[in-house]
């Protein structure tokens, strides 16, 4: 069974991002970039499937600039077998990425795509779902457990207020939630070995995909600064404020 894992290059989760002064987006100059943390979880799951003898090959795919190759290398160091970079300097929206992935799925014929549930830069949470729709495949989103048996995937999903376990037929798209696993750190020998693993480069034009943006970003702003708290003298005053100012109790 082949597993395809899309990995996105995003601003490192430790970086305190700053909005550009013209409010058109986030300042990416000299900012540390890393693999989207949910994609790390996807790679880990795919590698575990391979180690368990369920998967035979894990392919890491990224859509982005040349530097996205580093993100693929990280996936290769974690245990993926090979990579595919679809090179583009354009901003690609989730629909565009889903279309590109659809083409790659057509070429590679994987049985399973494990994607992160969302990327931490745009928080779209759309690519996996769109890909499943475009392919006409089953989808199981927000996975916190994944079991493959008899051509079916049993997935425990994190939903509001609890867990839902579903079974989907394969091929399928699964999107990984935070608790699916704890990604490993790549060992130094594996970082070295990853350099020798192949990364195939393609362009959006070669795949014949229209990635023209459908959305227009009007404005990006920082979250409102948190206001300083107040000290209350009595419990009665606290209850009064919770009731009348915060409106959190009736």
């Amino acid at each position, binding site marked *: 069974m082949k597993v395809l894992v899309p990995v996105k290059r995003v601003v490192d989760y430790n970086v305190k991002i700053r909005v550009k002064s013209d409010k058109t987006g986030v300042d990416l100059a000299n900012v540390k970039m890393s693999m989207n943390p949910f994609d790390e979880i996807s790679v880990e799951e795919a590698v575990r499937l391979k180690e368990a003898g369920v998967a035979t090959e894990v392919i890491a795919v990224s859509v982005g600039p040349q530097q996205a190759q580093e993100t693929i*290398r990280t996936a290769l*160091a974690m245990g993926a077998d090979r990579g595919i970079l679809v090179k583009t300097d354009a901003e690609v929206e989730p629909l565009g990425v889903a279309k590109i992935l659809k083409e790659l799925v057509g070429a590679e014929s994987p049985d399973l795509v494990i994607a992160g549930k969302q990327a931490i830069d745009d928080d779209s949470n759309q690519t996996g779902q769109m890909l499943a729709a475009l392919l006409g495949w089953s989808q199981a989103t927000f996975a916190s457990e994944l079991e493959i048996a008899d051509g079916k995937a049993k997935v425990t999903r994190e939903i509001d207020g609890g867990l839902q376990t579903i079974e989907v037929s394969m091929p399928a798209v699964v999107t990984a939630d935070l608790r699916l696993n704890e990604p490993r*750190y*790549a*060992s*130094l*020998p594996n*970082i*070295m070995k990853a*350099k020798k693993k192949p990364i195939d480069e393609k362009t959006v034009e070669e795949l014949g995909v229209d990635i023209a943006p459908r959305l227009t970003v009007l404005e990006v702003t920082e979250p409102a600064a948190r206001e300083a708290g107040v000290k209350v003298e009595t419990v009665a005053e606290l209850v009064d404020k919770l009731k009348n100012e915060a409106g959190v109790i009736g």
Partner: protein
Amino acid sequence: MDFRFSQDALDLADGARSFLDGANPPERLRSEDGRDSLWPQLAALGLLGVLAPESAGGLGLHDDSFVLIAEAAGRVCLPEPLVALAAISVPAVLATYPDEVGGLVRGDHVSPPVHPLAPYVHDADKADAFIIAGPDALYGVPSSKARLTPVKSIDPNRNLFRVEADLTDDLKVGGAGLCAVMAVRGATYTAAQLLGLTDAMIQMATDYAKEREQFGQPIGGFQAIKHHLASAQVKLEFARPVVYRAAASLDVDSIARQQVHAAHAKIAANEAARFASEVAIQVHGAMGYTFEVDLHYFMKRAWALETIWGDTAHHSMIINQAVIDGGLDIGPGTTFDAA
């Protein structure tokens, strides 16, 4: 001459940094009694074998790869003696009993170095054996033949012991030359860890200066604070290439030249760390003295490392002897001589 680090070295350091940052956050430094050792993970990730040959399960790389990892270990104030084992013990065992290196690389055996310049050994009670530099030879001493006396360190994350043994001929494993190599490696890699600690202290002070407000603005907005931090950063940037050069010259240059490079590195790193710790504590104001702030762990580690493998006075004497008494050529024309 290409002064850049190889992409391999940078990638490995990145990998190590990402592990160390995640596995040893400052909170871990606060739990010195009940924490699990990272030793199995350090071994599994291959960090113990960077300098060991591939036949022994290592990566077979040179010191210019490990120096960045040592710096990363310093930056997180790693309690485990990774650097001493991987950068001092592994090469010493490789030079004497190469068949035994595999055990060190896998983390099965722990044989820390003991030298008159670093007589107290961290976690000596967990060691199987010691590599002891005697007055005229190198000795391999099993832990059963060593006498350990606990010594209290200023650094709460260093569990020190004085290690003594009867250095008899049957324990001899190498000559005095290996003791000199051990001292050079000790000084160079302690300097590398000091770079990391200096970096961390400047970062902490800078973060605090951006957050702490006084007179209606963050204190980092005041020139007096900015200048202090900038001066500390300059000291660090000036020390870095000196330490990197010392690492690059290990096992490549003559031992005399390695000694001078290591001495220069240790002096520069000592100075940068001392200055950064003073600045960091000033910037933190009274908070810097409290246990609530992480700074003191890094500062105490820096103070501890400043004195081991030769303090500034010791290394100044080495340079004095080499330049004044030994007639070592100095100046731009000889900077890159590999004599």
